[in-house]
């Protein structure tokens, strides 16, 4: 009797949060979900197919897919070694380097785009020699789209892989060494497989970020249909001229993002998986 009497109020207290917390929590949830619901309700579902085969949207979709995959690939090739160096190599100023690497995460993308433009533009410190020596001009080309997307996506991959490398028990590698494994064998047979889930998660995250990139792209690559106009840019442009097409494209992006969340469910949403 006594135990039951003391236990039941405790249980009800736990399941019923105080209203000062419950009400803002519900508002927050509604705040996040209502716009998405609004988008889905405004979608002209019957004509989505037609809108998506329109040449302008087709171009945007193709360009977005190609550039975002390339950007994810660049992030992978450059990001894994950088993550490894940050996690495993002791060097002076490492905290500063890590902070700089993560800067694009918080930097307004338009600032990133401006920075790219000033550095890689025709008169920039890298852009000027590129043009004079090789005749390469980067701004306002599809290559500029890839560069802008890589710039904003790279930190996501580095963060994810570095976190995994830090969390990884290096003693697995020691165990492999005591079993006679060379450095290369340890890296390929032990280190890489153990960090593979984080690499997949980081690459997916980087790809999703690249796919949705707007600010840096429009600043550094411009908004030329068929050349640099990616899906987010097309959505922005179409809102003025063809609202339904803009909504249809938005729904495509939303669907892709939901897919990414499903892919990342195991890796990213697990508590502590992205610990840095």
């Amino acid at each position, binding site marked *: 009797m006594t135990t039951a009497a003391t236990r039941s109020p405790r249980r009800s207290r736990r399941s019923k949060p105080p209203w000062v917390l419950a009400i803002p929590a519900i508002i927050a949830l509604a705040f996040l979900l209502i716009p998405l619901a609004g988008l889905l309700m405004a979608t002209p579902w019957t004509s989505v197919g037609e809108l998506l085969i329109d040449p302008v949207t087709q171009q945007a979709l193709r360009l977005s897919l190609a550039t975002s995959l390339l950007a994810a690939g660049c992030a992978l090739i450059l990001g894994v070694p950088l993550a490894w160096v940050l996690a495993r190599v002791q060097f002076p100023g490492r905290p500063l380097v890590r902070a700089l690497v993560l800067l694009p995460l918080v930097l307004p993308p338009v600032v990133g785009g401006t920075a790219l433009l000033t550095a890689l533009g025709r008169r920039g410190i890298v852009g000027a020699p590129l043009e004079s020596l090789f005749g390469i001009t980067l701004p306002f080309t599809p290559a500029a789209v890839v560069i802008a997307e890589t710039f904003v996506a790279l930190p996501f991959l580095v963060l994810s892989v570095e976190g995994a490398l830090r969390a990884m028990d290096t003693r*697995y590698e020691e165990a*492999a060494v*005591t*079993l006679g494994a060379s450095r290369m064998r340890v890296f390929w047979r032990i280190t890489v497989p153990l960090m593979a889930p984080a690499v997949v998660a980081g690459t997916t995250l980087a790809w999703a970020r690249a796919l949705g990139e707007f600010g840096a792209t429009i600043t550094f690559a411009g908004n030329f249909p068929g050349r640099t106009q990616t899906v987010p840019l097309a959505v922005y442009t179409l809102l003025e001229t063809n609202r339904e097409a803009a909504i249809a494209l938005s729904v495509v992006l939303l669907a892709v993002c939901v897919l990414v969340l499903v892919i990342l469910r195991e890796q990213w949403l697990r508590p502590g998986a992205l610990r840095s």
Partner: protein
Amino acid sequence: MSAQGQELQRQGLERPGLQLQAQVARSDFVLDVHIAQPRGRVLAIVGPNGSGKSSLLQVVAGLVSSAQGIVVVDGDTWMNEDTFTSAEKRSVGMVFQDYLLFPHLSVQENISFGLRSRGSSRAHARATTADWLGRFGIAHLAERKPRQLSGGQSQRVALARALVTQPAVLLLDEPLAALDAQTRVSVRAEMRSHLSQFCGVTLLVTHDPIEAMVLADDICVLDQGSVVQCGTVADVTRHPATEYVAKLMGLNLVSGIATAGTVALDSGGQLVTTNSDLTGAVLATLRPSAIAVHRQPPQSSARNAWEGVIRDMEHLGDRVRLDMEARPSVVVDVTSQSVVELGLQPGQQVWLSVKATEIDVFKAHDEA
């Protein structure tokens, strides 16, 4: 090179086995150890947590390059002032406290990893691994991933992985610490039989004296950064060099054959225990303080009583350790007061008794 180092190297080149001289810096002291261990014997390194025991294993394995010292194995110099053989080139097998089985590889791949690393062909590695899986009774687990194994199974895989390359030195770092008490007893018995078949040098690091007594031939006790005592298990138990060693090794270990709760001891005599389930070869432990000493045949309720002669007496703080020549021969701890009251002295004939409930019995080896 120092004269001592030269002497050590000379010995190492002549004698098969392990010569180890190492200085390992800990936060508040420097562990300075000199060990010589012949092949085919198990040396237990016993000491409190933080005494630097595990670091010694890392020095032998070559996992720390900062340590100073000399490691000579079967005449090969692995480390001295001028040479350092990198870890992957040393013929060692190591079992870690938490096993460190590679989580992405199957049991079979874990065990064959060392063979493949050391250049065995795929076919040879496969055949050898199959042989060891059978020897450890884990053939049915070959395709499992480590996360699908119980603690005892993981331990077997870890030991098989370390032994499969037939290393010159086997390093066991608290190999049973991660197991629950019940599994530990059976795995320990099994491990004992595997170790007895291993012909290289085995170093076992443990903080558990029973583990040391059951698995090892020799014991080396560390305290405050240095070796307090080194010797055979019987020597160290019977003649502890310090109070610390006496406390640590405060156990008698006897072997015998059990039938229906009674153990016929290999050294003669018998013990009545409360465990009537065990049959066959067993080991039993008796705490020295659990054994009572009497001048006359005891009238107490204790089920075990036997007669013996006091061989030696040693003062250990407020207690006195009696070294008894009896069946079984044991060490007994009594208070200084009892020594006076009973008038105990070396050479004297006395009676010993111990309650059946005070005796821990466990299987000596796994017959399964």
